[in-house]
């Protein structure tokens, strides 16, 4: 029969308790310049920037009312909000699809980068560096102009619309960044993990699947989320190559209103949309980074 060992509730009464074995207590909390600054980059800061946005929008509309124009700026922005919301929906859709494709490809490429085969390793490294160091816009042009607009597979024609090509174009740099993060995460694990899995009779594939990859998730999550925020901020690029999204809708709205005073509020409004979407992501990333910080 198994008898659970009963320990006294008070740790000081437990056998083997010695104060000298406790971790050293720091008596004074270190207060540096950093902690002060850090607090400013927090949620408060986000609200501060958002307030600045709204005040500048309000100031613009106030100046408008003073000059006695037909329709106030706020009313005009409100009028175009449904269209902009639809456009931003496209941005989010493109970013999610690219992220999904890029992540899957990037994880595979990252694993190839630590392959025991030297040739595979070098080719994977080269592909990663190539896509990581070429500009996003050039890759986007590459995919938009060089992927055919329809592909024939076994007699059926699969159309390849522009937005799908844009998704592929944006997923290439995501793949490269993900591959680098993956390699870094795998190599940051202590080699003891590989050796103990080896000694337990795991094959290389099993070690990768059951030991290494689960441990990389924790290290990958913060840079992955940061990458998603960066990707979302890169989605307006697709408007340059002629795919509809918030920026192209905003410019269409500006063209149809044809009012100079609407320019600043409209662009600020678009910036506001992105800020509200991206700021929480980067805030969460920072928090996760602090929580998952690998102690050295």
């Amino acid at each position, binding site marked *: 029969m198994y008898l659970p060992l009963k320990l006294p509730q008070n740790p000081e009464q437990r056998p083997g308790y010695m104060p000298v074995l406790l971790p050293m207590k720091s008596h004074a909390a270190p207060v540096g310049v*950093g902690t002060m600054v850090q607090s400013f980059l927090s949620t408060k800061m986000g609200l501060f920037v958002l307030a600045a946005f709204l005040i500048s929008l309000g100031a613009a509309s106030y100046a408008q009312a003073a000059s006695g124009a037909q329709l106030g700026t706020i009313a005009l922005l409100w009028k175009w909000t449904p269209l902009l919301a639809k456009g931003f929906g496209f941005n989010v859709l493109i970013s999610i699809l690219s992220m999904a494709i890029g992540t899957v490809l990037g994880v595979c490429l990252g694993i190839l980068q630590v392959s025991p085969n030297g040739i595979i390793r070098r080719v994977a490294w080269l592909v990663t560096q190539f896509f990581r160091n070429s500009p996003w816009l050039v890759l986007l042009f590459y995919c938009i102009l060089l992927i055919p607009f329809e592909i024939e597979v076994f007699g059926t024609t699969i159309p390849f619309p522009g937005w799908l090509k844009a998704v592929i174009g944006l997923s290439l740099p995501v793949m490269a960044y993900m591959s680098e993060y993956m390699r870094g995460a795998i190599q940051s694990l202590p080699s003891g993990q590989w050796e103990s899995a080896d000694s337990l009779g795991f094959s290389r594939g099993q070690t990768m699947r059951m030991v290494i990859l689960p441990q990389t998730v924790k290290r990958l999550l913060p840079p992955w989320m940061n990458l998603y925020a960066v990707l979302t901020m890169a989605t307006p690029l697709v408007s340059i190559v002629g795919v509809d999204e918030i920026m192209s809708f905003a410019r269409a709205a500006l063209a149809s209103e044809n009012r100079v005073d609407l320019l600043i509020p409209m662009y600020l409004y678009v910036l506001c949309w992105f800020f509200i979407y991206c700021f929480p992501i980067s805030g969460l990333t920072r928090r996760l980074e602090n929580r998952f910080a690998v102690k050295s």
Partner: protein
Amino acid sequence: MTSVEAFFEMLYDVHGINVTIGYDSWDRGQFLDGLWLTVQLSVLSIFFSLLVGAIGAWAQGSPLRIIRALVGGFVTFFRNTPPLVQLYFFFFALGTVLRIESDTGLAQPLVSNFGWAVISFSLFAGAMNTEIFRSGIEAVPNSTIEASYAMGFTRLQTYIYIVLPLAIRISLPSLGTNLVNLVKTTTLAYALAVPELLYVSAQIWSDQLNVREMMNVLLLSYVGLVAILVWILHRWEKALRIPGFGG
């Protein structure tokens, strides 16, 4: 020169690979002008972004709360909004409003599209640099700063002569990543019709209908530019290394 041109003509005639910049002097001139403008754009943006970063990081250690809040707001804003929309905001919104009357009586833009591109990229990368320098400054030991105060340095002197030289060495790796990103971001100037590398290449491939060849040349050019920058940064890192300090 003629043998090079003959080679590219042969490439086109025999293999159908039409690299017009190899044998057409007009296209080559256009391409080299674009390359030169991209280099100018990159160097100016890198210089001003480093300046913005250094000033921002200094201001963020200020004892005044309002200054810290303003710098924090600047960094938060530029880090969390798309660079392309920032560029549009500067060029189409501010650029349209900021006009001066020229001698002919017509409204002239105060800053050219090239100027707005430099301003926008500098602020965007400068916000990132502020963060990078800040974490570098944090890593400078407090005792070093206290020692310099004890030697009678003022806050600004301490920053310029003691903190910044050490902080630069600590933050060089992440600075390198950001500057590489900045060079890649200069392609966005295409949207303002600044005739940089991407823009002139697009013109060449629309004229000559050699999209595939020009695309590959373009990609290789950018990878080459980035490789040069990485090499310079690497040399710089090596030259700045103080034995016994840092890794």
